[in-house]
């Protein structure tokens, strides 16, 4: 990929995040710049292993187990040491 292509894909991904997060503010460009494809990586090109260290699962928690138990289960099946949830969702 050329510098132009990587930059275009990177900015496209950021705009997609804005859409997902419902950020409606526009971007102002201070400095036209391109990024070098020889280091770093587009988030959309992360391998499964890389996502296991820099990813997030939008999990549909079932009613039975606690949030803590769900995270423990997830760590176990994914075989990872570290994971954390965003705010408990406990029994009513």
């Amino acid at each position: 990929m050329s510098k132009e292509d990587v930059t275009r894909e990177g900015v496209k991904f950021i705009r997609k995040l804005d859409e997902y997060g419902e950020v409606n503010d526009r971007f102002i460009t201070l400095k036209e710049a391109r990024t070098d494809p020889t280091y770093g990586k587009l988030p959309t090109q992360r391998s499964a292993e890389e996502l296991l260290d820099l990813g997030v699962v939008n999990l549909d928690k079932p009613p039975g187990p606690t949030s803590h138990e769900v995270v423990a289960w997830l760590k176990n099946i994914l075989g990872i040491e570290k994971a954390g949830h965003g705010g408990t969702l406990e029994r009513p």
Partner: protein
Amino acid sequence: MSGVLPVALGSATKLIGLIMLSTKEYVAVAQLHEPVEEARLREVIKEFIGRIYQRPPLRSSVKRALRVKTVYEIELLEYEFPYALLRIKCEHGTYVRKLIHDIGLILGVGAHMRELRRIRTGPFKEDSTLVTMHELSEAVYLYRNENDDSALRKTILPAEYIVSHMRKVVVVDGAVSAISHGADLAIPGISMIHENIRRGERVAIFSLKGEIVAVGRALMSTEEVLERRKGIAVKTRRVIMKRGTYPRSWRRKQSK
């Protein structure tokens, strides 16, 4: 309780705290203990929109002091006695069980919560990105046993989604390394910046590839950044990108 529970993996765990304080949205089933007119129910529900006082329930994880919480929206989706289906949008830390109990008190008939499902926390909601534990374990199976990572790569989102609801600053390659070592972001390092950033706001710092570099606190509003040529725009708070990902481009101060 069921519903949206974002789980951050590995180094992304550092970011997940940013979601905890965000607005939540639920659907809840309330059971009324005696019949009331729908019009009356709607009226009472309306009284609970806005700032409300709440004492956390006996079985709760926080100190039981009276707290003020904001309820943004309550919508009566369906009502068939004894059940009322509600959609509630509220500040984090609002107890929906307590809210329903209190609605019952004002109605004068009593009520309790039968079921609760979270449909939103921060940017995460019930949409095509939501996955069940079943779908996740199937994707893991395909990856580990069939050597097929396509399902898992769809199931796990890049960590950047955790900060998708925050305003963003995109920096040039030359600034990435310094920030990943904990340096603050100076104006010359900025390529793009969202409009409407206020001073003191939490912002996400991105590379031009769309990688999250760090999260920080804006020391200047977008307007101030546009007016000035130099100075620190964002104080770096939490670094996500691993050092050494981008080449070092800054120089050490010359010692005299």
